[in-house]
């Protein structure tokens, strides 16, 4: 037993070391941030400023471009290429919805039902990233080729009749139609939907499902009232990670589409690299950026994610 003759140990043994914090110590976080800030400055801020100035220049390749604050470029670009803008939003939106429909059950399966197969399925989801984006899209060109097994099967099942009637395909072809572009986008961005969905589903305590069942909720109600609301952060980040890059994509429209399926990304690419009309290309980029920013802000506000856990 302890005797009481000993003095009690000091309550805060660290107290004597507590000196007023030194200045250098307080600056450490900022020093640690410096590489990141420099990176952003050089590779994000500077190009943005440069592009912004390009978008208000006039001139020609031969005579050189000068900043003339020619904002009319924006209006001209928008009025000429608005169909491509609308198409981008439509295709990216369709692909996002398809990704959600395909990705949610998959993420749910991995999170709650996969058991020991979980890691294997996760690897399968990520595996396509081991090959180049371009190669994978080219592979789709073969898959959807005219007279190929996929087109044959769709034809036999009269699916193509329906999609033709909807204007998504033409006749017996799938390649070079909007459907092919949307399929390509869906395929390429599916992992960006599945991963955040999986992360937020996996965080849900399985006992909450049991609790809902215990409180008279049928499995469907449990999903509607508990699982889905709790997975909202994943739904929001998944749709954003899919929609934003899909809206700016040009590879899928280029390889799987036709001149009738050109998206805004294709226009920007052509303006920059072929026509060499830099101001129009820069203006289009800024319009796309602004449009996505507005849509995303409205979306996040409406889904009320800041309210969730």
């Amino acid at each position: 037993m302890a005797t009481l003759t000993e003095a009690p140990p000091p309550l805060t043994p660290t107290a004597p070391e507590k000196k007023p914090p030194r200045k250098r110590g307080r600056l450490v976080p900022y020093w640690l941030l410096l590489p990141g800030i420099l990176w952003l400055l050089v590779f994000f801020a500077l190009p943005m400023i440069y592009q912004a100035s390009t978008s208000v220049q006039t001139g020609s390749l031969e005579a050189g471009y000068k900043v003339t604050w020619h904002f009319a470029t924006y209006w001209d670009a928008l009025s000429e290429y608005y169909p491509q803008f609308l198409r981008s939003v439509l295709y990216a939106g369709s692909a996002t919805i398809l990704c959600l429909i395909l990705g949610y059950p998959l993420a749910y399966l991995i999170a709650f039902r996969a058991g020991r197969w979980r890691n294997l399925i996760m690897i399968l989801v990520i595996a396509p990233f081991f090959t180049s984006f371009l190669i994978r899209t080219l592979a789709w060109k073969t898959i959807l080729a005219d007279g190929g097994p996929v087109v044959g099967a769709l034809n036999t099942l009269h699916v193509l009749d329906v999609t033709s009637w909807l204007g998504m395909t033409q006749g017996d072809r799938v390649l070079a139609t909007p459907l092919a572009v949307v399929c390509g986008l869906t395929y390429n961005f599916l992992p960006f939907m599945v991963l955040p969905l999986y992360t937020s589903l996996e965080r849900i305590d399985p006992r909450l499902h049991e609790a809902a069942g215990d409180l008279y909720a049928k499995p469907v109600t449990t999903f509607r009232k508990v699982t889905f609301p709790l997975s909202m952060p994943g739904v929001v980040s998944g749709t954003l990670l899919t929609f934003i890059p899909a809206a700016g994509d040009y590879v899928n429209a280029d390889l799987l589409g036709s001149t009738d399926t050109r998206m805004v990304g294709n226009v920007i690419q052509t303006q920059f690299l072929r026509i060499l009309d830099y101001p129009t290309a820069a203006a289009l980029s800024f319009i796309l950026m602004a449009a996505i920013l507005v849509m995303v802000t409205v979306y996040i506000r409406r889904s009320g994610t800041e309210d969730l856990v």
Partner: protein
Amino acid sequence: MTTVTNKTDNTGDVRLSGISKTYDNGFTAVHPLDLTVPQGSFFALLGASGCGKTTTLRMIAGLEEPSSGTVHLGEQNVTALPPYKRPVNTVFQSYALFPHLDIFENVAFGLRRRGIKSVKKQVEDMLDLVQLGEQARKKPHQLSGGQQQRVAVARALINHPKVLLLDEPLGALDLKLRRQMQLELKRIQTEVGITFVHVTHDQEEAMTMADTVAVMNAGRVEQLGSPADLYENPRTTFVANFLGTSNFIEAEVDTKNGDDIVLKAGGGKLVLPEARCSAPTATGGKVLVGVRPEKISLTHADDAGDIPEGRNRITGRIADSSFIGVSTQYVVDSPVCPEFEVYAQNIDRDARLVPGTEVVLHWNPAHTFGLDAAQDIDAGIQEEAAV
């Protein structure tokens, strides 16, 4: 609907017949088990972690499918019913409150699922019962552990289940709050009169709250009875050690004397009422003689002559003593039992009783119980510290 509820109504009985659970990996969590919990009682399933008590509870709730046997609630066989069709509710360990819903909606969840439209009055009354009326619009993570625990109870009770299942509901609370909630739960149970089945590893909690306790060990019920009965008449060393502390002396049956058995232990004799012996008592048979530490008196060896006749007595030397306020706990080294524990009330402390002193331990034979010597003397020890 009849207006008068019959007092002998047994719709809240829980009847488990031959129920067992074996997992796919071959582990048997619960061996075939028969158990009846009468309507309106406060029933505790007590045992160390992994003894099958939670599995048993989950089979009543429908969250675990039994490998064999049936579950009846009153007259209804609910074995095949999914949880959402069973008239039982559960208070989960760590509560499982819905984090995206506020307290009001958490409590209203069960009512809404059953299609009840006007829930406001009921929810408010229930929140008042658990003293959380002010917190209705807060989210669960904004509440303290004790408050969350009360929300979990309210969320279950508002559905007026026939049976309320509590899975270690107080495990996450600190000691003081736990004691307070034990009394609170007991009060609520008395008030609403619903059958409570409470799973716990805390023997004190089970004894304080329950009318009937079933002590479980390795997937079986070791013994079932009222807390006092389990404490005074344990039938296995596991129960004797798990509920409080017991001292055991290995003894041999010598003769019978009326209702008592006389046993030989070391050089002396001990007397044990036959009614309190669960072991076979043929002459020459081995019996574990048990006695609780607080039943024993301690007398200095010099005063041995003052001890009244007819008491069981053994000798020993005090090995250690510790003063803990209400009592002094002695460990006595005796030839018949190496670490004999004695708790003495601090009424007339004998200053001579310090470690190293030769003493005589004596107690009323009526406080002696006998167990089968063929079991592990130490079964059920240490569990208190675990979890």
